[in-house]
């Protein structure tokens, strides 16, 4: 089963839920898909046994044979190629690696080379397997790294995906193919607003989902009202407790120090399994 953990708003507790759930159940493969700001490893201190670069393919033009017809630049939807009468300029950080320029070049003088955009790391913490990616500073596109992280999925494991915040392409890429998505929110106007956007996204993707309310009791009741109206299951509430916040700040998964939570995360996972098998 593949369960992803997402939220429109940042800082609602995605990583906390992912890590604590992962530590409470067995046979887990945890994938941190927030490759811009991966944080899962800060809580698990894994032994990293594999580090690999992640590349995308970007065009290279053989300028000696190029007649500067400009067809490649005309085709490129991402403005990654600029052709003047005597030069071709390539901007790898704008390239989406679609390969179209190679196909349209009438003289066949464009080839592709690897351009490094990040790193893939994998390792283990106890019997838990962890995979995460890291986007190079200044590179704009996290999606190819997320794809690489997800290529490591082992379907016979309990796979947990920690998503980046937001509601756009990196989130879609993470959630795509999940059996279930947990939406973590907080009971505040910002939390609710961004939750509603994520609900639209998941409805569009036809991915089943449920809500975890973090920092319950702060703010107002509107998240609950919204979920009731929309018939969205609230799977778990995590209260705002100084101890939880303090453990989080030190990078300690709170279920390790507060064992009663282990059981709650197990129940959460079992409930999801039941919802999925229905």
């Amino acid at each position, binding site marked *: 089963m593949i369960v992803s953990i997402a939220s429109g708003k*940042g800082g609602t507790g995605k990583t906390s839920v992912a890590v604590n759930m992962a530590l409470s159940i067995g046979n887990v493969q945890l994938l941190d898909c927030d490759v811009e700001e991966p944080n899962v490893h800060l809580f698990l201190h894994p032994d990293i046994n594999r580090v690999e670069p992640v590349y995308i393919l970007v065009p290279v033009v053989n300028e000696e044979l190029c007649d500067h017809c400009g067809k490649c630049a005309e085709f490129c939807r991402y403005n990654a190629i600029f052709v003047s009468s005597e030069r071709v300029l390539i901007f790898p950080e704008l390239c989406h690696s679609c390969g179209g320029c190679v196909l349209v070049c009438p003289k066949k003088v464009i080839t592709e080379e690897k351009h490094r955009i990040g790193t893939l790391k994998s390792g283990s913490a106890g019997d838990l397997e962890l995979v995460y990616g890291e986007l190079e500073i200044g590179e704009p596109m996290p999606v190819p790294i997320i794809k690489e992280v997800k290529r490591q999925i082992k379907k016979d494991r309990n796979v947990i995906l920690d998503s980046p915040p937001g509601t756009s392409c990196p989130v879609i890429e993470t959630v795509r193919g999940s059996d279930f998505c947990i939406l973590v929110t907080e009971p505040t106007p910002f939390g609710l607003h961004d939750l509603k956007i994520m609900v639209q996204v998941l409805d569009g993707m036809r991915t089943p989902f449920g809500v975890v309310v973090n920092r319950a009791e702060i703010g107002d009741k509107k998240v609950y009202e919204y979920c009731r109206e929309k018939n969205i299951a609230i799977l778990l509430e995590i209260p705002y407790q100084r101890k939880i916040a303090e453990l989080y700040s030190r990078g300690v998964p709170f279920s390790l120090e507060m064992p009663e939570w282990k059981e709650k995360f197990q129940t959460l996972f079992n409930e999801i399994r039941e919802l999925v098998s229905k």
Partner: protein
Amino acid sequence: MKQLTVLSGKGGTGKTTLTASFAVLAKKAVLADCDVDAPDLHMLLHPEIIRTQEFRGSKLAIIDDAKCTECGLCREKCRFDAITEDIKVDPIACEGCGVCTVVCPVNAITLTERISGHAYISKTKYGFMAHAMLSPGEANSGKLVTLVRQNAKILAEKENSDLVIIDGSPGIGCPVIASVTGVDIGLVVTEPTMSGIHDLKRALQLLKHFSVTPFVCVNMHDINKDNTERILSFCEENSIEIAGRIPFNPKVTEAMVSGKTIIEYSPESDVAEEIESIWRKTFSFLKSGSS
């Protein structure tokens, strides 16, 4: 004209709370909400929309079933796995690159425009505001951020405002890059947690990469004093300006619930006072061009 971007790396550290407060304190700045896939600034500043623009960020491939022979070449050449086994376009995966239109032997595929969101120009009590809403699940947020920033610039010129305050999104990828390029200060809001510190460092590297002057502000500094010390000494070692540290105060959430900035909701609070001090420090740097 000066531009200030509030960013964070990690989400939920208080970017919007700070940006909205700055809007009140600055009085006549132009505001830009560049978190286009989860914009929240409008909930504190209540803009009245005066103009709406359609945003056409990307195209979408359409297959003409009458012409299609289901040869599968498009599926083979698409690098975004956007053509399904039964040769249909998956609109979520399609990036509108156009490769399928080129390889289709019977010219059955065309690209169509799609509306990927809306950009708005609005009026608030505290000045004009440029903002946007990316359609749920759409790509190209960087392009929409660029449009919001262009709108903000035009507004600033028209209104004779010499300051644009930009609310960024979490992360360090395309929308954040589009929010920080060419600005005068990148104010990173962080929190004294292991995640906050890790993400702050990456956000600072991003600012360095794009030669933007960094300022750092620690929010909820009293939830872990050791970590706050760590952040402050890291900044000192790297000669990074510390704009201030904001205490934890439940009034911030109360203010949000009542749809107000903390400056309006509780002007006497410790949080409001510290934000004012951060604002003065940041603004005087912007005015003088040095600290």
